[in-house]
């Protein structure tokens, strides 16, 4: 089922792009990643909005946790009332996981350089696209030095993966007033790039290129959707702080200055978050 609905279509589309784009596999990966990003854009936006919402609710969550720490049932009830949903941020991410893993499988399968894996590829090509069979074995050389089907012995790709993942994470990370969450975020900001960098040491370069392109497109997407996000942020700040939600209790959340200093653009957003916004607009 996994192969039938996820990996096989991706494998065939990737090869089709390789054929259309002048048998340039790197170009095929870039266009394919762009397509995937477009298809999953609604989910990504939903995930970012969800994370933003949870971040904005932190003072109230903290307050409820403190207040009802001896009554878990009541705590749950109150949490529900303020709109707390622990999976709202990660559910879209969980839905994207099959796409991500399927894509990795497809890239791995099409970049195959050995007979055993080639026979597996042969079983999964669509018969109504007969031209795809003529494309194998894929030309896996890149810039005359790299073999896309093998790990990068020069360490260039793992390093670029670490740097782009770090930058992308830093940009996407939601500001928070919860010290525990801030600590987790800070750890994530370092751990995720290192984990993926480590993963790239033994992974074909083609997968690394997908990851780099995906990170860069994520950054581009961040700036493109920023106006929409700012609007949503302003909305949540109004609802949770000044627009009808329960007011946060002073002293529950530590001052923002105690947390990791975020980018300047985010400081502006944070300041707005803690200010009552009576006209519904994000004042800058």
């Amino acid at each position: 089922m996994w192969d039938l609905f996820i990996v096989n279509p991706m494998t065939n589309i990737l090869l089709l792009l390789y054929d259309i784009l002048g048998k340039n596999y790197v170009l095929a990966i870039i266009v394919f990643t762009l397509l995937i990003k477009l298809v999953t854009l609604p989910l990504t936006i939903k995930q970012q909005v969800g994370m933003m919402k949870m971040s904005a609710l932190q003072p109230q969550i903290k307050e409820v946790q403190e207040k009802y720490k001896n009554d878990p049932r009541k705590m749950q009830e109150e949490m529900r009332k303020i709109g707390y949903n622990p999976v709202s941020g990660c559910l879209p991410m969980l839905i994207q996981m099959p796409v991500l893993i399927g894509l990795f499988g497809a890239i791995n399968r099409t970049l195959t350089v050995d007979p055993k894996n080639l026979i597996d590829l042969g079983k999964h090509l669509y018969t109504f696209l007969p031209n795809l069979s003529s494309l194998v074995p894929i030309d896996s050389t890149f810039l005359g030095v790299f073999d896309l089907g093998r790990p990068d012995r020069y360490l260039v790709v793992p390093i670029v993966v670490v740097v782009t993942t770090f930058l992308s994470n830093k940009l996407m990370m939601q500001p928070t007033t919860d010290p525990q969450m801030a600590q987790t975020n800070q750890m994530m900001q370092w751990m995720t790039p290192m984990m993926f960098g480590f993963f790239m040491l033994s992974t074909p370069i083609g997968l690394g290129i997908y990851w780099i392109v995906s990170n860069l497109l994520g950054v581009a997407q961040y700036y493109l959707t920023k106006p929409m996000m700012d609007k949503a942020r302003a909305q949540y700040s109004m609802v949770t702080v000044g627009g009808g939600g329960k007011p946060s209790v002073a002293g529950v959340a530590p001052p923002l200055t105690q947390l990791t200093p975020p980018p300047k653009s985010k400081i502006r957003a944070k300041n707005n978050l803690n200010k009552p916004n009576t006209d519904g607009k994000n004042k800058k």
Partner: protein
Amino acid sequence: MYKLGIVGTVTMLLMGCTGSDSAPSSFPGAFVDGNVAYLARGGQVYKYDVQSGNLLWEFPKQETLERGPFAGLPVKFGNTIVVGEGLNFASTGGIFSKEDHTQRSLFGLSDENGGEIWRFTGPKEFVDGVVTDGKLIYAPNGDGKLYALDPAQKENGQPKIIWTFNDAKSKLWSKPLLAGGKLYQASMDHSMYAIDVATGKKIWEFKAKAPIAVQPTLNNGVLYFGAFDSKFYAVDAETGAKKWEQTTTGWVWSEATIANGLVYFGDVRGRVYALDIAANGEVRWTFDTKDAIRAQPIINGDTLYVVSFDTNVYALKAADGKTAWPTPATLNYRLPAKPWVINDTLLVPLFDSETRMWSLDIASGTRKIQFQPVKK
């Protein structure tokens, strides 16, 4: 903390889905000579006594990631056994690898004790073994060249290259067929080449629409072979002119066997075909297994034996494709290599199991002897 959990899980899943198959990267091959069998598989080459299953020698003595996988059919050349190393993806070792792992060697081993007599290091892999006329060894390589080697003469400590055929534009992943002063060599560049064995020059070239990765079968002046374009071809061996073609459901990566006017082969979607040569390749019967067929089917009397990646050995009536055994013999591991018939025994090499081969009773398919990588 759930975010950390998700990142960790994704990473583990990705790592899992990119390198979980522990089987060798290239297919094994066995060759039977009288009462002994030579098997090239994974990190070692083995010589077995067929009757007892005793291991007579192995090369090298210890299996390492740096050596192998030994692949394709071992070939007897005088008192040496010639065997090549296939593509070694497992030992790339990522950044920790210092040597060029695309370089693979061809070995001449002592038939008596398995000791190394000579070595020829090719630019790339030797996936399907070599052929010989008793004087020279014809070795196709993953670099797209076919090398004619003379082990009796040495050049830089390696067998001397007498000539090189370098017209092919892609990998050579199948051994050539040597017949009538010609070598017929398939290439992943979509062509079948006829080459003058004396000079290494091209005589003709037949173009398919996708890679060809099988040794052709010759019968009455006609070459029979399939390709990745899901076609099976009959081509005149003298001129390279196509006589007929037949469409299959999947890539053809199995060599053909000819008997009683029918040509038998399988495809990667698991279908076995019997085509009528006299009727320009008309399909006489087909039989479906559950996974890819890569090995050449073999015929013994009225029965055709087929091994499949679905881990089964099938005995089919050659005339109509009906099953000859009550049930197929299940060996629980993928079966990519050609089986052998020795008297009342069928010898089947395995791909990714601890057991290297099984011998089966040819009449019923029941298991007889297990061939292990250790001396009994």
